[in-house]
């Protein structure tokens, strides 16, 4: 692998995870906000709300994980390595 491909791959891997984390970060923030408001309004529903919140967190997290998969492919199984 020549140095320019290595450099581009490492930068792209960083960008893939970093940019991919922005959206889910915002989403998880607003989901947590909704959950906290729900619990404050109805403390007896805490168990149900927590379960749903964790499940939806995992869905949002998987969006970043897609970026991570791309980054891992670039770092460890680079198709342009030649």
């Amino acid at each position, binding site marked *: *692998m020549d140095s320019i491909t290595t450099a581009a791959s490492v930068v792209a891997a960083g960008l893939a995870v970093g940019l991919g984390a922005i959206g889910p970060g915002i989403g998880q923030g607003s989901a947590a906000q909704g959950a906290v408001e729900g619990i404050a309004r109805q403390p007896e529903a805490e168990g149900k709300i927590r379960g749903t919140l964790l499940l939806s967190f995992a869905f949002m997290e998987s969006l970043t*994980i897609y970026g*991570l*998969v791309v980054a*891992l492919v670039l770092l460890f*199984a680079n*198709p342009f*390595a030649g």
Partner: protein
Amino acid sequence: MGTSPFVLPFAALEVGQHLYWQFGKLRIHGQVFMTSWILIGALLTLVVVGTKKMERDPKGVQNLLEFLWDYIRDLARTQIGEKVYRDWMPFIGTLFLFIFVSNWGGALIPWKLIELPSGELGAPTADINTTVALALLVSLSYFYAGLSNKGLRYFEYYVHPTPIMLPFKIVEDFTKPLSLSFRLFGNILADELVVAVLVFLVPLVLPVPVMFLGLFTSAIQALIFATLAAYYIGEAVEEHH
């Protein structure tokens, strides 16, 4: 993964290195097969032992198995619906238990004590081939569920609210297995990598909470995979009016 991986110099992570077994023209990842067979064996032993002497008042292993059965039944019933959930409960339950046991077995059993000539033992679900196989099985089964329950009327689903949805629904058939497999693979591999990097940097105390977080997320991932599989099957057998 690819043919020419490079190992990061700052941590001895062996991503993309495998123990290859040659079967004719097929090259398979031996370490994945070894761990999955061991874990499937453990799961089968547990189930056989638990159902051998069934009692009216469940105790010990039987109690645990009945709890799991209840849990999987509730999951399947809420997602697939009262009418056909019984046909699909074994499939959903198998998916859930296999993924759960693979994820936790990969994290809890000290595989690294066993030295392999190449690659290393770990969770079977941290290999993309395992997760793609599971996701394609889900695809096949929701097609089968739809076609066997509704016949050719299954294809009404593609034009259900309006025919404008047709291209999106066709694309969805391809993105469903893609996202299912990547989600599971990425999460489990990420857990293993984070723990490996932390153990390399700070070998004491600090990795332990991250390991617990990894156990938690891998349990949730097993639940998500099973829930989504059940949801896709439920979507296919649902009657539109």
